[in-house]
């Protein structure tokens, strides 16, 4: 039974890690854009 929940949790963990990575890249890009704007 633990395997089931682990599997579902792992799935979402991986998805959210990737989304988090995208968000971080976006934040960094925004900063660069602001730098350029100056």
């Amino acid at each position, binding site marked *: *039974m633990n395997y089931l929940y682990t*599997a579902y949790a*792992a*799935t979402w963990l*991986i998805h959210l890690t990737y989304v988090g990575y*995208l968000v971080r890249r976006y934040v960094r890009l925004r900063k*660069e854009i602001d730098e350029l704007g100056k």
Partner: protein
Amino acid sequence: MKRFFPILAILTAGLLSFGLYEALVVAPTDQMQGEVYRIIYYHVPSAWTAFLLFLINFVASIVYLIWRDMRADAVAVVTAEVGVVYCTIVLVTGPLWARPVWGIWWTWDIRLTSTLVLWLIYVSYLFLRRFSNSGQTPVLAAALAIFGALDVPLVYFSIWFFRTQHPQPVVGGGGSIDPRMWHVWLLNWAAFLCFAGLVCWSRYRLEILQREVEETQALEALLERSPR
């Protein structure tokens, strides 16, 4: 186009939640495997999504090589990345399913093995994209994608024959599927497709934005250096 995003996001959240509910509560318990079999409601749709994304990557790579459209290249990198994410999920949930049901974490089962090789090929694709100089990256990556696609049938045959000569435990579910399970499968697949769509869209916009920023930075560097 932009207004679609929130609508799609809400739809996706709904589908995913409903899919989860159906998978855990509504779908009937398997006679032989018990509750653990429910992993397939995440494992199989993730596999189908990953294969679809890699197929799109293959098409985008060909489109790029023929027409040299940078948007095709952006689609290629996006689908490769998101495809690897889904493929990783397949490779993680697979053993988590195999262990309680068949007592082994891994076996050279044809589906697991060919998924592993596909994952390896696309991870190497991502490495190539990261380490090559930006001028060449689209062409080199597209060439690699084509090689990868050509390899897939050969991988499949080699594993199939290997298993014929060295019989291995069979991991993939045999037997007939309860029809009630089908619609939970499809529901979760639809949910994950929508989710993949959202993520790909975001990643695509990020990629386009990144390229614009880099172009601007390059231009600025040029202008700064030119003599006044």
